């Protein structure tokens, strides 16, 4: 008995190819999540697509298309997973390192994430500098601190100095006050940065939940 040339039992059908293409785009966009997590997400959605598209009996290309349309754009779906991940991370731990790590993932997916990452990075950096100056004041009492220095253009400029090197030609503005002020202001800035980053992620996530009508 002969079969027609098109009926190779192991060749992927058009419907399967569509599912594979969708899931591989998704997998790529989930790159930032940990490997096992991303794999589970892909397998869960594969299972969903198979069952959903087989619900009306035969798995046809049209049924697969409908199932994929229900899940939406794979890139948008991936960014829902990554921002959700960021939010749950933030709910479990407020550590700046965890938040920055999650923000890196988000930034790789969307321009909004990129700007939030940039802002948070600057916020954490400035907060860290404040705390560092406060700590180094104890080691370099005569040179570390917030200094007001004459600039070349005749104006003055403010400068946070870690205190390495010679005594600068200017005035130490805060003296020992830099120790409590640096710790408190630096710590507050780090906390504020975290709150703002989480707030943005939440707003972004909310904007994606709207069902498409």
């Amino acid at each position, binding site marked *: 008995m002969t079969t027609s040339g098109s009926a190779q039992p192991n060749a992927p059908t058009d419907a399967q190819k569509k599912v594979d293409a969708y899931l591989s785009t998704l997998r790529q966009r989930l790159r930032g999540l940990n490997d096992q997590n991303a794999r589970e997400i892909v397998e869960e*959605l594969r299972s969903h697509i198979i069952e959903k598209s087989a619900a009306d009996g035969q798995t046809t290309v049209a049924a697969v298309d409908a199932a994929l349309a229900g*899940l*939406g754009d794979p890139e948008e779906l991936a960014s*829902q997973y990554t921002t959700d*991940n960021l939010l749950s991370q933030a709910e479990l731990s407020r550590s700046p390192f965890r938040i920055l790590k999650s923000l890196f993932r988000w930034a790789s997916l969307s321009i909004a994430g990129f700007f939030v990452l940039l802002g948070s990075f600057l916020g954490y950096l400035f907060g860290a500098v404040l705390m560092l100056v406060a700590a180094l004041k104890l080691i370099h009492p005569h040179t570390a601190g917030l200094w007001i220095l004459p600039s070349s253009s005749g104006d003055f400029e403010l400068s946070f100095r870690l205190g390495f090197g010679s005594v600068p030609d200017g005035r130490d503005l805060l003296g020992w006050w830099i120790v409590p002020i640096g710790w408190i202001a630096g710590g507050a800035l780090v906390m504020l940065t975290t709150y703002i980053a989480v707030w943005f992620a939440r707003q972004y996530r909310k904007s*994606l939940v709207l069902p498409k009508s």
Partner: protein
Amino acid sequence: MRQTDAADKWEVQLRKGCLELAILASLWDGKLYGLEILRRLESDSDLIVSEGTVYPLLSRLKALRLVQSEWVESDAGHPRKYYALTPAGRQRAREMAGMWSRFSHSMTRLLAPIVKGK
């Protein structure tokens, strides 16, 4: 026209706000997999939700340890990921349900004249 748009938008916000509670509630009687949760939400609550929203939310509830998951082989030939409430999830669902019924009770009382006088 404008007014209807604003009302529609409000309705969408309202549905979104309920989604987390709706998912936890769907798991109250036992474990379900993603598609079953979606079907339960559609049939029991006419919450119209996009599938692309429920799966990431399930993953978040899991990260928050409100639900746990396990893979189960099925007769259909592909494994299914089942979700079940953790003790913390049950607790959260109970709290949210309590808040919900207090809130809806007082809203219903407040809205009674509007509803009656239509």
